[in-house]
């Protein structure tokens, strides 16, 4: 074997962590989508690195399903939306770049704080990768809150899911292949429904900027 498992974990998690940071800073929807593909690739590398110990057909099938949903279906659906509604640029954020960077730094520091130290005991060898996964979870949450665009919110939710899955894989909380397929099926349906709703929003409001959705406030 060319690489240690912990090295693969570190590299994959770094991919996931960096991609969510860049998602927050990126202004173009296509760039965010590419970053999501990179992030999902990190998850797939993590899954593959663990599958090689088992080498069961079902485990490989689970990886294939994840690949299909995260690398093919989700980006395709979202790219179609971008093209359909001419969404070249991501809708604005609530906070400016400087404040966004500060919040990201605070969230990363929070993940490194002693509060979450017990979680690193789940896989002491991969302490840094686990903390990065936690930071990616918090930053993904911030991405969902900070973006005003429905499309960015979808990618934020998917990024949150990637971060959680990567934490679970690094911490050794891998589920049975059957369950992984079940979870992916759920995510797959979620993506379809979310994209249907994005189209509905565009049809009703003529934009994907969620700040224009004020009908509930007016009632």
């Amino acid at each position, binding site marked *: 074997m060319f690489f240690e498992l912990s090295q693969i974990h570190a590299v994959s998690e770094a991919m996931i962590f960096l991609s969510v940071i860049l998602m927050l800073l990126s202004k173009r929807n296509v760039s965010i989508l590419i970053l999501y593909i990179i992030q999902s690739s990190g998850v797939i590398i993590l899954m593959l690195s663990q599958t090689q110990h088992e080498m069961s057909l079902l485990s490989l099938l689970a990886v294939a399903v994840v690949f299909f949903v995260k690398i093919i279906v989700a980006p395709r659906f979202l790219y179609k939306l971008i093209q359909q509604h001419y969404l070249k640029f991501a809708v604005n954020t609530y906070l400016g770049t400087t404040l966004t960077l500060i919040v990201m730094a605070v969230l990363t520091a929070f993940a490194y704080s002693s509060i979450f*130290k*017990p979680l690193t*005991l789940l896989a002491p060898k991969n302490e840094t990768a686990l903390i990065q996964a936690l930071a990616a979870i918090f930053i993904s949450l911030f991405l969902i809150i900070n973006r005003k665009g429905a499309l960015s919110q979808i990618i934020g*939710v998917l990024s949150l899911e990637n971060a*959680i899955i990567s934490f679970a894989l690094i911490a050794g909380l*891998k589920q049975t292949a059957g369950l992984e397929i*079940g979870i992916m099926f*759920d995510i797959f349906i979620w993506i379809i429904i979310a994209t249907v709703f994005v189209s509905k929003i565009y049809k009703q409001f003529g934009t994907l900027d969620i700040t224009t*959705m004020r009908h*509930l406030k007016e009632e």
Partner: protein
Amino acid sequence: MVVSFIITLPMIAAIISILKKKDVQVLNIVSVVSVFLELVASLILLFSVAANGDYVFTRYFAVDSFGSILLVIVALIGFTASWYSTSYLQVEVSKKIIGFENIWSYFVFLHLFLLAMFFAIITTSPIFMWISIEATTLSTAFLISFYNKPSAVEAAWKYLIINSVGLLLGFFGTLLFISSITKTGGHTLVYWQSLLTNAPNFDPMVAKIAFIFVLVGYGTKIGLAPMHTWLPDAHSKAPVPVSSLLSGVLLNIAFYAVLRFKSVTDASIGPSFSQQLLIFFGILSIVIAALIMYVQKNYKRLLAYSSIEHMGVIALGFGFGGAGALAAILHIIYHSLAKSILFLSAGNIFLKYSTTKINKIRGVLSVLPISGTFFLIGFLAITGVPPFGIFLTEFIILSSGIQNHLGVTIVALMALALVFVGFLRHVSSMFFGKADENIIHGEMGNRIIAPIVLLVILLTVASVYIPTAIQLLVQSASQLY
């Protein structure tokens, strides 16, 4: 056998609804008959659990005492909602609120919604439970946006995003709970029972973090403050039969998930940690809901905030523990019945007045004497007026908190009084006075009232008499959680 029946029926009903999408008569019959059979099967299961203990179908499916009560609640409220829907949708079609072609999709998603809830209760795996609860979000998102208006789409989007984020946090918490097994076991499917067995090996700090994530995650679905922001919008925008299911049933299912994790946490680190958190979120929910209910302008939102308040009361009951937990389980039953009565009666009010704004409605009692009376009964029951069961359960919950949590109990008592005053204020302005002259007096037929009659009878009887089987199950469930 009964379990497979409960799971298969909604699936078959959904498939028939897809195939027979142009035949409204078939859609109606399939809907009512299938959910009625689900109710019968759930009752059989309930009596079986009461007589013989937990019903274990396979390693993957089992029903405990609390689960059997919840199954009956899902099936019962599902049955009245389906029955009511058949007439309600017909009136909406005749008033051109919805198109004829929308009905089949409504029933398909309704059956899938029921299926997901049944599955969440019956499964023995926490991950499958998470998948099922996530599936309830996906099936109901379409039901919330059923009217396809901007406000309905907005409410559905808010619901989808907030609940998905909440449930992902719940998923993270679930995975952390599973770490207690993977440390000692392997990559096999994790069951609730194995989590409980391994609870003593669970790292106490990880258990605390995991429970916080689970409570915040599933708490979002329950509608506990401050994660409740989606609930008033979603519950007020959905068609009323769906609102009755969302408020009266779905919130309980999410609560069931929290309680199952609570029992694991308690077995690991003792009950005080989870109880304190439940008390905190419970009292916060009651106070926030009470304040907003007082100034509410929309009666459907009023009912939605009332659900937040009652989830707070239930959280308080489990937080106080002992007799409080027992009362909380009974409270779940009474709340489901009373809230369904309120939502379905509110549906009749909406069909008559074509508005949900409180200040535009006058003289309901003279315009809709039967539906109006049922709404009043629901109001008295939900605000805890004797002799209705909620009076007793709230009394027990608050009594059990007096000794150790006096401050919280006093605040809860004041908030509940405010809820009553606020609700009474709105009800008296809507129900009395003179109605607009262009409003035609009279009910819209017996079929639309019959399901509410059934609920009113059940609520009244259950308030004064609880069958021995259910008493046993409630006692057994309160010891588990």
